[in-house]
């Protein structure tokens, strides 16, 4: 199978999302779908998000926007004008999917809700991603990434146990929305599979609060089954009982995450041998520790002491030396990298070709972007840069909808596009 086109190549997707939902369209566009991003005239608010290229604020140069809007075409359209509403309906006639993240009820108030759009195109899959869902007592509550991570319980599990007074921490990077877009995109594809089987479209109602609420690993089952609450611990798993700190500083100012020392007897003996070769095993060669390792003990004075000695060993080496040395011995240890430090990792950057070179002809530049989240060996992944504001107005309205240049000019002059 040597497909030259992606798995979703037959699909046309309309993307009306703001910051909350924009990642969905990227995931589908990079799998081959034709994604048309629809923004208000002048561009949407997601173009105001930092950082900017050369720190100059410009709607076409938000790096945040670039990162989450690749593989899309872009048009402008004022949905609050009747003419804009008619144009959207025309686009819906030939679309497979519509993605939106407006407040619940907003599109309905414009006559563009699911019932209206499914009347235009019964096979349409429409996905609505909102802070709390389309109904319920919180349906009109506002969200933000921080609110989502707080309400959903992610923050209850993340933070410090050795920094008095420290608040729960929201891991940065916009993950409340990322988690939600991952789920909502899966839901969209579920609906498309249903359509493949039955010919029917449907509405997908996705809630950011719910997406975060089921992304806290053991926190929920721990309460459901033991009635205990997990507690935050610095740089490692939440737990009901405290566990030793796993962040180990290195000689070059980095950290290694050691995860656990007593994972199995074999691994323990290998570790002690490695430390002994460097003359740094101290008393860990004592058979007493063998027994602890054989029992896979996770906490207690022996574990604490072993960690102290292991930390001294790590502190005498660079992060790279420990990482390669540990992985060569099958320990799941890792360097705590800054995200951009992955650019220098040959396994990902060279051997697996993870990163993508993306052309910006409008700037005469090519920049390195993050690449595909998985390799689909039968259907290619692709990407291209995010659209400039209204970049595809002429081609979408002219070629797809058959409008004349005069007509497009009139819409532009009237602020409809």
């Amino acid at each position, binding site marked *: 199978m040597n497909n030259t086109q992606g798995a979703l190549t037959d699909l046309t997707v309309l993307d009306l999302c703001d910051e909350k939902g924009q990642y969905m369209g990227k995931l589908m566009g990079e799998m081959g779908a034709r994604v048309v991003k629809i923004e208000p005239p002048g561009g949407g608010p997601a173009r105001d998000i930092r950082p900017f290229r050369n720190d100059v604020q410009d709607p076409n140069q938000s790096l945040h926007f670039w990162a989450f809007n690749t593989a899309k075409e872009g048009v402008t359209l004022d949905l609050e004008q009747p003419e804009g509403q008619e144009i959207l309906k025309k686009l819906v006639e030939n679309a497979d999917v519509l993605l939106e993240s407006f407040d619940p009820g907003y599109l309905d108030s414009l006559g563009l809700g699911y019932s209206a759009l499914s009347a235009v195109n019964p096979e349409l899959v429409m996905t609505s991603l909102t802070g709390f869902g389309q109904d319920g007592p919180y349906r009109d509550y506002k969200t933000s990434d921080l609110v989502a991570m707080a309400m959903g319980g992610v923050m209850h599990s993340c933070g410090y146990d050795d920094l008095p007074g420290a608040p729960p921490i929201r891991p940065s990077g916009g993950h409340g929305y990322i988690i939600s877009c991952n789920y909502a995109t899966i839901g969209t594809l579920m609906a498309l599979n249903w359509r493949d089987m039955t010919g029917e479209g449907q509405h997908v109602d996705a809630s950011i609060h*719910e997406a975060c*609420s089921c992304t806290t690993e053991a926190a929920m089952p721990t309460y459901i089954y033991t009635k205990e609450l997990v507690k935050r611990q610095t740089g490692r798993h939440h737990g009901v009982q405290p566990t030793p700190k796993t962040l180990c500083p290195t000689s070059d100012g980095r950290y290694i995450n050691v995860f656990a020392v007593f994972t199995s007897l074999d691994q323990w003996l290998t570790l002690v041998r490695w430390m002994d070769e460097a003359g740094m095993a101290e008393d860990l060669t004592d058979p007493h520790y063998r027994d602890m390792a054989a029992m896979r003990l996770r906490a207690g004075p022996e574990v604490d002491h072993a960690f102290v000695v292991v930390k001294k060993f790590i502190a005498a080496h660079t992060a790279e030396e420990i990482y390669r040395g540990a992985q060569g011995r099958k320990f799941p240890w890792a360097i705590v990298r800054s995200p951009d430090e*992955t650019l220098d990792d040959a396994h990902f950057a060279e051997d697996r070709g993870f990163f993508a070179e993306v052309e910006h002809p409008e700037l005469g530049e090519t920049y390195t972007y993050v690449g595909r989240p998985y390799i689909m060996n039968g259907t290619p992944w692709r990407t291209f840069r995010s659209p400039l504001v209204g970049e595809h107005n002429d081609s979408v309205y002219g070629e797809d909808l058959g409008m004349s240049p005069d007509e497009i000019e009139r819409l532009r002059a009237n602020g409809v596009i």
Partner: protein
Amino acid sequence: MRKHAVEGVRVVDFSWIVAGPTCTRILADFGAEVIRVENEQTMDYTRNSMAPPGSDSPNMGGLFNNLNRNKLGVTLNVMHPSGMELLHDLISVSDIVVENFSATVLKRWGLDYEAQRKIRPDIIYVSMSGFGHTGRDNRYVTWGPTAQALSGLTYMSGLPGEDPAGWGFSYMDHTGGFYGALACMNALHHRNRTGEGQWIDLSQVEVGMALTGPAILDRTVNGRSFRREGNPPGNRAPNYKVAPHNTYRCRGEDRWCVITIFNDEEWRSFVKTIGAPEWTSDERFATNEGRYDNQDELDRLIETWTAEREPHEVLHKLQAVGVAAGAVQTPKEKIEDDPQLRHREFLPKVEHPELGVTEYEGQPMRLSRSPWELRRSSPLFGEHSQKVFGELLGIPEEQITDLMVEGAI
């Protein structure tokens, strides 16, 4: 009549712990027939984590039950020739194979993609390993926290100048699971159209890297590393020049709320709602710029108001005037005291033979025509061996008993 979105799709599920089971949980919840293939020698340790003290039952793991509901479970010994034969038979009648072992395991079993294709030409095979199946480090080993640390996500979480706080759980196991499911759905879409299957090579570290787009561009476009003074940004807004935007201490032990204000109008609503104490008229706080430049002091003053209140009072009072605020909710509050989750029936219940009637986390996307459904609790160890090998593969009962005796099942 057809009811579920992926009804009729059969999945052979070798996955274990959290990442793989998260992927197949999504498929099972939307109607796929997911058959967990397990083995006594390498039992999923979540089968008995959280079990009551003294219990040695492999069926009382709460995390396991939460992740594996709606699935069937069989036992199979792939090291036994008859066990391997059964596995081939199972793959021949299935659509998807999912595993999250280290990169070399299935190859060692003689079941890499090419081998699976010979058994089932349109099979969709999803391998979820730490480093992927190709590349110089493909034998390296990961847990969720390893992938988080290497991809940069651990470092991005924390207060500036302190140790990284990281993620308090295996976020990369969740996300690996999401992308496993997403890849399955992409591949099913392609197969519906062309009849072709394929192999998906998913690396958990790359899944994490894929989420760091803006940080990578800041380096490749602006030459600026995320590793710099002021990072990680704590709970402040890293991508907007706005304030207030932070966590605030509330009344009670370890109780916190969050308040995020993005413009002057929201600020004025906030001021009015908290009764316009004198400090709010300080002209430095009148504009977004001024609030941003003086946010240490602003945050301290806001905390004088929140410290007198419970997190949910802050939530409701501020949301009533259109300010995005929230409570840092505990699992207990989500389960027992979240009217939104209750209204949306997000935590349905079903009975498990050993654990009784308990709540299960729902799926956060509601499909109007083909919704997810909680149909059953997780499989007891080997619960469906008779059903799957007998009904599905047509093996007579006495032969199944023989296979059990010789250790193939």
